[in-house]
């Protein structure tokens, strides 16, 4: 049975699109058929993070307007045959989205893929509401800072009141990813700890992704960090993908790395 999962955050710049790309690829690496859909109409970015920007010919809006078929618009990943990408329109704005057309499009995607991952736009405007409207579940991406947490809290409130499931008396499943977690800063009480964030947001934890400088380089190169088996962030995304695929993988809280003598000396001069 297919599952539609919206990746949301409320605040922009927290790593939502990066998470979408890594989760989508991770699910595909777990041998599941997956499509990632860029719902950020007018501000398309997911194509670059997946390294597919030069393959975009048709987009989601053209499919909904019957200007192109779904087969024409879907792009297969260069790195994994189980992963597909449906791009957003870069030349139109969010006002072109229409509930009936979105439901029809998602219905088609449900028939073809086991996982349909929607990358929501930042904010809580109409584009966001359309992304969550037909979702079965939502992944909330949050940074360990108060502004991100408040915006996520707001987004969860809207999810709980305006999604189709909520309007029918049900509840959309919600999972939390804490992104850019820095255990050194947590230890110094300069960053909110994961348990504090969970207490505020009251959402099940899906995973904690540690701060990792390699993520930016990976995104710039169009090679999601999950492909780097040595990266801590990549390993965290793989654990998240496995959990989404139904595997029991324990949550790993990033720990402060004990530095050797050379590391300590470097730290003194940094």
């Amino acid at each position, binding site marked *: 049975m297919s599952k539609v999962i919206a990746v949301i955050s409320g605040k922009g710049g927290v790593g939502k699109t990066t998470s979408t790309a890594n989760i989508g690829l991770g699910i595909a690496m777990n041998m599941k058929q997956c499509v990632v859909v860029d719902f950020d109409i007018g501000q398309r970015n997911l194509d670059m993070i997946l390294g597919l920007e030069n393959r975009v010919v048709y987009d989601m809006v053209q499919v909904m307007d019957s200007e192109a078929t779904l087969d024409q618009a879907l792009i297969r990943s260069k790195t994994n045959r189980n992963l597909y990408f449906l791009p957003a329109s870069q030349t139109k704005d969010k006002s072109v989205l229409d509930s009936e057309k979105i439901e029809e499009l998602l219905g088609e995607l449900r028939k073809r893929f086991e996982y349909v991952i929607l990358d929501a736009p930042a904010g*809580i405007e109409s584009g966001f509401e359309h992304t969550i409207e037909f979702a079965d579940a939502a992944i909330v991406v949050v940074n360990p800072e*108060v502004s991100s*947490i*408040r*915006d996520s*809290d*707001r987004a*969860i*409130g*809207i999810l*709980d*009141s*305006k999604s189709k499931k909520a309007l029918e008396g049900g509840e959309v499943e919600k999972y939390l990813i804490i992104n850019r977690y820095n255990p050194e800063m947590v230890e110094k009480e300069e960053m909110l700890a994961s348990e504090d964030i969970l*207490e*505020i947001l*009251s959402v099940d934890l899906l995973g904690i992704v540690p701060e990792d400088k390699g993520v930016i380089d990976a995104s710039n190169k169009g090679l999601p960090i999950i492909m780097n088996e040595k990266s801590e962030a990549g390993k965290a995304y793989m654990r998240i993908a496995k959990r989404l695929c139904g595997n029991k993988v324990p949550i790993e809280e990033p720990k402060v790395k004990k530095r050797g003598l050379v590391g300590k000396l470097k730290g003194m001069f940094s």
Partner: protein
Amino acid sequence: MDDENTFIEFMEANSELLKNHLISVRGSLPERAREFMRNRGMSFVENMELPKGKGGGEFCISSITGGSTPTVSETSAQPAEEEDIYGDRYSYQDPPLMIVEKALRSGQYIEYDGSVLLMERMNSGAKVAALGSVIALNRMEGDISSVGDCIVVPSTKRGNILFHGRKIENDMLKYGLNRISFVNDEIVIQPLSKKEFI
């Protein structure tokens, strides 16, 4: 009370006495007992936990009309107009106590003519404006405005409290549960003392 029938008989016998109080029940009630209490217009909460610290435990809030309205819906965060809060409606007869059993999230807004009881946490960006009292039993980081008899809140660093239009500074809230009320026309903050507990 272990026996459901005994509980209902007790409530029936004392319904007149208890109907103007909030009844805190340790543990969960069977559905038949819940239904009975709702039909009698009794206000009740189950498994209530109070913040730890100075002044905690079970307590009874007197002079609140029975009945409960437990649901809160997402609203657009339109601030209440001043005249709505402090205008003619203040003289209305007490409406039923609103019991909010879910956490109030950022952007969620309750505007109510009566008293409001918040059982779960109130997050930063959430707002309650009440003509009656407001009692927050869990962590409180939102905005509370009340022109009722009192505000009861735990200590808070991020909360924003207005009592009869006057700002209550957070560093004045020193107790596990603080009761903000008028004593001789002055705003006084006191711990919710054990004498007031059931």
